[in-house]
């Protein structure tokens, strides 16, 4: 059942607006040089951080469609009836969501890096950092979507919940774009692993708690 659910998530992601987070990401990357001015050295120094803020805000966009429609329509209940654990549903949703979010965001990170003044080795570092970060962003999106499913003004609430949770990821992710010598990339990977491993359990518990 989980394989079918992953396929369904990908189909719905592509059928919906998979390009929306990517467009949002590029738009923020475009605005950064306008906001801080055309100083290439300054841009190069803050570019990695700006890229991460763009990625995090882009990850907020799909949250409302990840869990709530399936909760409201009884899909989550019917999945339980087939003997699928809520945690497995969470994991399948994470994988399915990442497949329509991660690779596209990574492709967009190439022009995005140029827009914020990162090139050469800095471009490579920012791509690696974003690549490691996308599974964690997808996992956080699904967990936060489950935690806010069924609540009024869930979209705004999801933003408030997700941004603090993403702070460690952003700290190490942005640091890893700046300095190849530091341990930031390893720490980012560690944080990402922790989020990816924990999110299915948070999602499963939240799905159960939301059942009335």
């Amino acid at each position, binding site marked *: *059942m989980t394989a*079918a659910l992953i396929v*369904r998530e990908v189909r*719905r992601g592509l*059928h919906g607006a998979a390009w929306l987070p990517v467009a949002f990401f590029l738009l923020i990357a475009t605005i950064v040089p306008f906001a801080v001015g055309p100083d290439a050295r300054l841009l190069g120094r803050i570019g990695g951080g700006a890229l991460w803020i763009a990625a995090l805000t882009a990850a907020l966009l799909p949250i409302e469609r990840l869990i709530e429609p399936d909760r*409201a*329509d*009884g*899909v989550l*209940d*019917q999945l*339980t*009836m*087939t*003997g699928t654990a809520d945690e497995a549903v969470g994991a399948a949703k994470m994988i399915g969501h990442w497949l329509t979010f991660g690779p596209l965001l990574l492709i967009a990170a190439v022009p995005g890096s140029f827009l914020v003044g990162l090139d050469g080795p800095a471009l490579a570092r920012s791509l690696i950092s974003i690549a490691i970060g996308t599974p964690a962003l997808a996992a956080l999106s699904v967990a936060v979507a489950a935690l806010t499913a069924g609540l009024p003004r869930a979209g705004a609430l999801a933003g408030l919940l997700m941004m603090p949770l993403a702070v460690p990821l952003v700290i190490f992710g942005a640091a890893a774009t700046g300095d190849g010598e530091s341990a930031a990339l390893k720490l980012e990977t560690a944080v990402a692993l922790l989020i990816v491993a924990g999110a299915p359990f948070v999602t499963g518990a939240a799905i159960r708690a939301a*059942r*009335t």
Partner: protein
Amino acid sequence: MSPLLKGHGLALVRGGRMLFEGLDLELEAGDALHISGPNGSGKSSLIRLVAGLLRPAAGRIERAEAALADNLLALDRELTLSRALAFWKGPRLGDAMRAFALEDLAHLPVRLLSTGQAKRAQLARVMASGAPLWLLDEPQNGLDRKGLAELDEAIAAHRAQGGAVLAASHTPLAGQWRIMELEA
């Protein structure tokens, strides 16, 4: 043979109110139990409790594999009916679509189905699952006379094959049913 459903001393609290307590349930192969009672008496909650979607405040439930049809459609609106039903991987999907006369609607997108057609699709999913225990919440809602006959026939066939049905409804159901009355 062990019963398909056995509930002992069940109590359920919703919103700080005790809906029922000390409730015993037992369904053997071929049994059918009709839960009746006024609105708000906890019929749907009892169905969800047996389904495992709610936790009892007290008591214990043991049951065989079950399939549920409640008032939530759980079918992807953008897909055709046959593809949307196929997602649920019921081993008896072909039989079920025939039993509820859904073959002519197979290529229609789910979003275009009428209330009664959607109800038939839900009942077909229950039948397709091959589960021995059917949990039906208001199964007659929206069904026309032909749909009601298909439902009665499907239930009778299911019981004849050794299945059991637990249905919540405020209107009578055809055939021989044990009746359990919940009080408001």
